[in-house]
């Protein structure tokens, strides 16, 4: 399933990128020379140059951006994300965005919602033009469909969390998958519902796909839609839409499920599944690192940056934020613990992993963006 559109790096790249040619171009490697002649000839597969080929407005505050990367781009599985690198005022910023279209399409596409506090998402929504060049990573992430697709699947999306799920549904339906597919989709209201028309059209075309929209705000236009936040009724209602699932719904045998969206939605779905004892059946994808738990009495101490020989008082935020505020420029990427760009050696002290809650003691490589210092910490930074 979710087969690759292209299977490998283009032929000339494999010919040029050989040990002998790279030895002649030492220590920079041949790619660093090629990209000077034409940026699209770059051989760097961590920052693949991609031209913007089209920008489509999805809602008032979201756009879909179609990309044409160079031959380093290989393939992706529906549900995966890419890191997008954008240069603004000489600084590179990167964020992760899910690919939002079928894995059978040649050009990858992302859909970006303009969060009012999101610097990059705002830039992509308002400043980016067709023909611009940005850089992307290869597809990453394990929020993907299993190799053996089960006969029934349930997707739960909230807001821009629809993006990886749209790619999965698109891919399944394009592949003429015959099993039952159900989507329970939360948006603020009818106007902010990304891919509404596309999903309604798919629901009409494919009998095995049923769609239940829920609007969290009161909306008179929402004829068939439910309102409010996720609960068990919504879950059961969504499943009962498809006649094939009625029997299963009654016995509470919930199909393999995927949830993506805001933290509150994911937490609500997770606790519901835990209650039903179906934790194993749920895959979830978060777009933001879980927020740092406020610690009482545990913060404090000093953070020592060994290489730059400076020190700050720990204020309990992530090490990345504190290092940046101390005037350091550590490498950073997704800022949510995924890309490992900010990986750094902690020489002493304890930190708490914000997403998992795990505590790391002593000398260890940590990701600054999701590490919350507990007392004195020293970093090789």
């Amino acid at each position: 399933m979710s087969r690759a559109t292209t299977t490998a790096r283009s032929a000339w790249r494999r010919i040029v990128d050989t040990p002998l040619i790279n030895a002649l171009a030492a220590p920079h490697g041949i790619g660093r020379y090629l990209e000077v002649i034409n940026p699209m000839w770059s051989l760097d597969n961590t920052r693949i140059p991609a031209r913007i080929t089209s920008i489509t407005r999805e809602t008032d505050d979201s756009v879909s951006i179609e990309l044409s990367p160079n031959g380093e781009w290989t393939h992706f599985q529906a549900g995966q994300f890419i890191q997008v690198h954008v240069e603004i005022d000489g600084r590179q910023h990167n964020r992760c965005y899910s690919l939002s279209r079928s894995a059978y399409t040649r050009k990858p596409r992302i859909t970006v919602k303009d969060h009012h506090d999101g610097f990059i998402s705002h830039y992509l929504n308002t400043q980016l033009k067709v023909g611009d060049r940005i850089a992307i990573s290869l597809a990453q992430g394990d929020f993907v469909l299993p190799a053996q697709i089960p006969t029934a699947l349930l997707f739960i999306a909230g807001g821009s969390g629809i993006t990886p799920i749209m790619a999965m549904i698109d891919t399944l339906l394009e592949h003429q998958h015959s099993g039952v597919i159900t989507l329970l989709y939360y948006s603020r209201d009818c106007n902010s519902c990304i891919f509404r028309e596309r999903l309604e059209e798919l629901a009409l075309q494919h009998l095995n796909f049923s769609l239940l929209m829920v609007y969290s705000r009161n909306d008179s236009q929402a004829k068939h839609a439910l309102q409010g936040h996720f609960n068990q009724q919504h879950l059961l209602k969504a499943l009962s839409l498809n006649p094939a699932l009625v029997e299963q719904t009654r016995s509470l045998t919930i199909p393999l499920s995927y949830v993506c969206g805001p933290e509150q939605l994911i937490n609500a779905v997770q606790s519901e599944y835990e209650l039903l004892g179906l934790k194993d059946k749920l895959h979830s994808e978060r777009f933001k690192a879980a927020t740092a738990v406020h610690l009482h009495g545990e913060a404090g101490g000093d953070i020592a940056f060994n290489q730059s020989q400076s020190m700050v008082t720990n204020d309990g935020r992530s090490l990345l934020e504190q290092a940046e505020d101390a005037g350091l420029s550590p490498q950073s990427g997704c800022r949510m613990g995924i890309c490992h760009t900010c990986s750094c050696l902690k020489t002493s002290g304890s930190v708490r992993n914000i997403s998992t809650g795990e505590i790391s003691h002593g000398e260890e490589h940590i990701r600054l963006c999701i590490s919350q210092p507990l007392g004195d910490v020293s970093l090789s930074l």
Partner: protein
Amino acid sequence: MKQHTLSAEQLDSFGEEIGAIKQQALSQRGTRDANYIKRIVAFQRGLAISSRISIYAALPFLPSLGLALASWPMFWLLICAGSIGLGIAKILDNMEIGHNIIHGQYDWMGDPRFHSKFYDWDTNCPSEQWAHSHNYEHHTYTNILGKDRDIGYGILRMDPAQKWHPTYLGNPIHATLLMLFFDMGVALHDVEVDSLRSGRKTFRETWPKLKQSLGKTAQIWGKDFILFPALAGPLFPIVMAANAVANIIRNIWTFTIIFCGHFPAEVHTFPAHVCENETQGHWYYRQLLGSANIEGGKLFHIMSGNLSHQIEHHLFPDVPAHRYAEMALEVRKVCNKYDIPYNTGPLWSQYASVWAKIFKLALPPRGSQTSITA
């Protein structure tokens, strides 16, 4: 030598004024700096490729091949252009690009191509080792005897306070050798081969760094003296010689710039105790007295990696170096205000002063000569 001393309060306010110049430059970093480094890198890569092509393009003109193209003038023109061009490309890569990037001047861009952690330069020294010996030791303990191993590179006597020994009679010869093989000198600098000789470190302690340096040397020399010459088949020696000339041009130039930055006559050295509990103001003051600028045009500054602004470089090692020229105006104003000497001069006079020192200090001290303390 007379030494104007500042009171603790004066040092503090001096430090604040210098710090303000730095803060202003840091807050202005942006597109201009990013475009600058990208353009220099693009030019450097283009020059390196075209110079190498020029060396091969010279070969068919070699009269001894008996081809219709035979022409000595064309052969010499292309081979010289190629060697000199490649030498300049290496100078740009090592100085304006490599030295400045490895200092972390462009880390804020968040682009791995220009980040100190990832950049490697076209010379024998592994950039990681250099970041330690240069960024840390030399820039923190600038001109402090016994701490800054850049004083004489463990081979030369560059300061009267270094105890004389008969081997220093060879100072001029050692300096000439260091100049011609400066790439190797830099590569072995952080390995501390001198500490090995004096017994301060065992071979076991030295080996990991030595191995890394030799590996990098094999990579760079293998490229210039085996792989590229091999592409010329039987004309191997010609390409090898052309590449050797390029490397020597780079070595002589980098040696010259670096020695002119710290060793002209009026530059001060310091005893070890000054860096204990040192204030920011005194640190700036020491950097100022321990460095010397070289005057020149814009092209000269770029070719020297802006180390011609050695004073500004030592005050602001992590500010993008192309900004030093404009910052120098402000620094001089502050120096005038506090009556602190600002050592600057044309290349020839600074260089003559360095060589005079190399010869003079080869001989044992006559009478009493003491180092200057701040």
